[in-house]
């Protein structure tokens, strides 16, 4: 076959997954092409202009710790930063930022353009070129053929996308952009099991026509907490969001027109995310609620556009307008873009190995919404792992598989490839068995050494990381040896601030465990020279480590057990139908999903402990 150009890795799509994939693969030394329909829309935020939130902010920190881009770009493009769950424990605190869409695109594109081995190409990929079960390249609409050893598909909602607004439907990848229909056909023809999902987005409003005085202002944190471990300080001006509510009049408009919503007319059959329901779903399913909360979010510094978060809808235009204008303060609002629902194709993620490589075609990787997930952060972390593994594939090295127990990324990928999805998959902290271990402030400790080994962490960043870890360790040692001494003036001051009494001299590491004790309280008890000099973030990591030491140890014991079970590999040629004692349903599931390890098999719904014992025995029998 003749090729116009040759690459090691081709990434199809330049969204949040595509950007991370292309960057990782190129930084790891592979000649990488990122092919996209429109190079002006690299890293476009197709839905809300925000990054992070509980569990999602955790993912961004993990991406950053591994050497990914999302955290750095968000710190540059953020226009409002908040640390969520401040009143709760460190394990469930997470950063969230509103972002300027345009700055986000620009910053990401600039970062990518600085990567020597990364080549941007505009064009529509129409088919995958496969030879003897192995990917060899892609073909574009204009006839160009690009060769590659590995390909990452990160096409978001573009695969066979259909937009719904009221009874009108049309083909599109995003509002105003064309869908990838031929590529969808090419994937289907390779035999992949495909499904269809739905998601939605709310209308965008003209800020000049909103009476902000009627809404509750929600300012950003001062000082803002950055996403990236490498960001020292965020200096840009912050903008506020505003909290609004629907009322009975709004609900009445929606109820009256509910038969014109494609969700209720039967026009849309596929499943949307339950945690991001449309406004029509909220009104119908929670009819006893007198009001629903909405957020007015600015889209950036240089635009009047305002995103009406919480009002995702596919109602017809006239109904959207009428309903929005029923909200007090939005009576005269002008709608710049309507809300819409979009249906798109996905590939069953149980078609993937834990490396995100497909089991069907060697060298082909899937990342992001194509795997049934929703959210920029979920997409980006898959892009990063797919990019890393595409590069490792080219370099003929073992793939990177992050264990469930040490990262949310590991949890996400393991959930996808061993359980599949019934609805768009979003990350929650409750999905992790190790929630108390997976904090945002120790993501670097957990993952930076791995990023370093892959070549994604620079010398400078790595030595800063090592020095920080040393200082944290030293702080912890100090707190384990140092006591708050009864009668000492610092101890008195400490007790007075907290309104507590100590009955005996107590180690700082013990005091750290008390729920009311915050890192800064312990600073009062540290030796003078340390107290004056230690960095608040590092002190906080040290205290958080000590605070939950008991829980973390208990979790680690559990984690090690999980790891051991996980580690046992299941031979690829194991014939489940041959095994006695497995129900037909289990045989069907196991044969289809083909779990790679015993741990993965155990997490497949419906597979019992006894079945795992049988498989374990069979593995031993096959070994002899």
């Amino acid at each position, binding site marked *: 076959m003749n090729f116009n150009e040759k690459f090691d890795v081709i990434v199809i799509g330049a969204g949040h997954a595509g950007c991370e994939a292309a960057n990782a693969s190129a930084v790891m030394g592979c000649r990488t092409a990122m092919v996209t329909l429109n190079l002006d829309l690299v890293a476009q935020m197709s839905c809300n202009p925000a990054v992070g*939130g*509980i*569990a999602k902010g955790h993912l961004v920190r993990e991406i950053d710790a591994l050497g990914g881009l999302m955290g750095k770009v968000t710190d540059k493009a953020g226009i409002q930063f908040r640390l*969520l*769950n401040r*009143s*709760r*424990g460190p*394990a*469930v605190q997470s950063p969230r930022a509103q972002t300027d869409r345009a700055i986000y695109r620009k910053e990401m594109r600039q970062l990518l353009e600085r990567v020597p081995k990364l080549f941007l190409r505009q064009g529509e990929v129409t088919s995958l070129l496969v030879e003897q079960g192995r990917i060899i390249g892609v073909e574009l609409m204009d006839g160009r053929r690009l060769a590659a050893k590995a390909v990452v598909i990160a096409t978001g909602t573009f695969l066979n996308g259909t937009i719904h607004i009221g009874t009108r439907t049309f083909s599109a990848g995003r509002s105003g952009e064309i869908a990838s229909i031929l590529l969808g056909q090419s994937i289907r023809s390779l035999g992949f099991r495909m499904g269809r999902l739905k998601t939605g987005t709310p209308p965008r409003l003209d800020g000049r026509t909103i009476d902000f005085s009627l809404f509750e202002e929600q300012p950003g944190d001062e000082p803002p907490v950055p996403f990236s471990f490498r960001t020292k300080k965020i200096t840009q001006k912050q903008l506020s969001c505003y909290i609004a509510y629907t009322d009975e009049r709004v609900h009445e408009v929606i109820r009256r027109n509910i038969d014109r919503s494609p969700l209720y007319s039967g026009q849309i059959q596929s499943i949307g995310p*339950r*945690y*991001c*329901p449309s406004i029509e*779903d*909220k009104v119908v*399913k*929670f009819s006893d*609620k007198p009001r*629903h*909360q909405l*957020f007015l979010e600015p889209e950036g510094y240089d635009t009047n556009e305002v995103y009406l*978060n*919480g009002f*995702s809808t596919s109602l017809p235009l006239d109904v959207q307008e009428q309903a929005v204008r029923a909200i007090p303060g939005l009576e005269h609002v002008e709608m710049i873009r309507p809300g819409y629902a979009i249906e798109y194709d996905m590939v069953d993620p149980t078609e993937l190995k834990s490396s995100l490589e497909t089991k069907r075609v060697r060298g082909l990787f899937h990342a992001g919404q194509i795997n049934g997930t929703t959210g920029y952060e979920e997409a980006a972390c898959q892009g990063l792992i797919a990019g890393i593994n595409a590069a490792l594939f080219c370099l003929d090295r073992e793939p990177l598989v992050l264990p469930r127990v040490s990262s949310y990324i590991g949890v996400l990928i393991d959930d996808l490839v061993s359980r599949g999805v*019934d609805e768009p998959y979003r990350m*929650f*902290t*409750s*999905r992790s068995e190790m*929630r*108390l271990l997976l904090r945002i402030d120790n993501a670097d400790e957990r993952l930076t050494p791995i990023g370093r080994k892959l070549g994604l962490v620079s010398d400078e960043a790595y030595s800063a990381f090592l020095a920080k870890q040393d200082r944290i360790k030293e702080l912890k040692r100090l707190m384990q040896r140092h006591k708050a001494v009864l009668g000492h003036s610092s101890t008195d001051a400490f007790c007075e601030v907290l309104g507590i009494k100590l009955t005996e001299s107590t180690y700082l590491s013990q005091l750290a465990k008390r*729920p*009311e004790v915050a890192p800064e309280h312990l600073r009062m008890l540290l030796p003078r020279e340390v107290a004056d000099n230690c960095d608040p973030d590092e002190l906080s990591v040290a205290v958080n480590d000590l605070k*939950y030491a008991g*829980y973390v140890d208990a979790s680690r014991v559990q984690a090690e*057990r999980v790891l*051991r*079970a996980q580690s*046992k590999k299941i031979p690829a040629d194991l014939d489940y139908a041959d095994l*006695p*004692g497995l129900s037909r349903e289990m045989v069907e599931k196991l044969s289809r999903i083909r779990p790679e390890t*015993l*741990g993965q098999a*155990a997490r497949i*719904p419906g597979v*019992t*402990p*006894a*079945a*795992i*014992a*049988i498989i*374990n*025995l069979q593995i*031993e*029998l096959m070994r*002899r």
Partner: protein
Amino acid sequence: MYAEIEDTIAAVSTPPGRGAIGVLRLSGRLSHKIATTLAPNCKLQKVRYAQTCDIIDPETNEKIDRCVLILYRAPASFTGQDCAEFNCHGSPFVLARILRLCYAQGARPALPGEFTLRAFLNHKIDLVQAEAIRDLINAQSEYQAKLAARQLQGELSRYLQPIKATILEAVIHLESRVEFVDEALDTHSIEQLEQQLAKVATQLRRLVDSYRFGRLVREGIKLAIVGRPNVGKSSLFNALLQRDRAIVTDIPGTTRDTLTEVTSINGLPVHLVDTAGIRQTEDVVEKLGIERSYAAIADADLTLIVLDSSKPLCDEDFRILESCRCSKHFVVFNKCDLGVNENLLKDYKGFKVSAKTGEGIDELRQAIFNYFSAAEERPDLLLVDARHHNLIETALSELNLAKSRLKEGFSEEIALFHLHNTLSALAELTGETTVEDLLGLIFSTFCIGK
């Protein structure tokens, strides 16, 4: 699950019910440590060596049984791991107690076929044997499936479902507070949740407490009647049985051998053992009988020491009282129709009965029953299975931790850590709750969608 081969597992490996001896096995890393903790007076670290030792409850320092302990060092053991084997007396009551002590020290109940599975995985048995085990596990899994189906509609599950529902509700509210901070959700207050949890903790506590009695109801207790000759042991035996089973004469030494019969006291199955009278004798046959009397004392859950209330205590009586000092016993003054020494009665906190007239027998029966049942407020349901008991006890202690953490002002995720442990302990009895189930409940309870 079976794949967790590093866990230390414990099980009684002799058939269920009452046998002459009961063998309790441990396999795994902690086996020797657990064995040495429970049997502190044996000369340890010597493997493949049978040593007699006492099993002591490390919490209460109470002696539970005298047994033979054998330690095995990996890989030279049945499973190929470190193992310990207690050969105890056959009382299911005692065995269950030792098993519980093993759990408290870090072992977990073994699953069906698990010892053999480990033996296979460690190359201790061959393929043919392994195939046989696989069939066994298969059979077990079918049995478990049936059992699970039955349990799901069964009493225990019915009792636990509302408890689980309450815990789940608390979990949903706590999870939602953590995951959806921006949503202004109408969740219960921490105080409200604490109260809900306290209520189910009480219910679980009752269930856990019912096990001691539930176990007895299933296995029965062993009651030995001992005393010197001619104090009326056999008469008491018959009186408690409510029929003439043992031969009663005035001739000392009529009962030459132990005699066991089953009766019930208020529904509690009782293995009643009549024994030969204990005295110094040269008669070979009688001597053998007396040895058996002592064995019966050792094996009994409760011993009734019978004294003649119409006569002063003699040396034989004192010797018997002395030899029973360490075992659970009641002192029964029989023949109260012929006279009573109130001082002695008081000194020994004895029971005053007459097997002949029936006086005091009902009170004695009631006292025996109370001794074993002792529960104040019992649920309609009794826990009888050791494994169920173990699971529910774990669930309860995790639930209590969750409650205390909330009270102490820890934030939700800490309480949730314990509540998820509670749910997973209950999972086997109530069905598993997956993350997807939880999310489903959250999204149907609260309108979430920023």
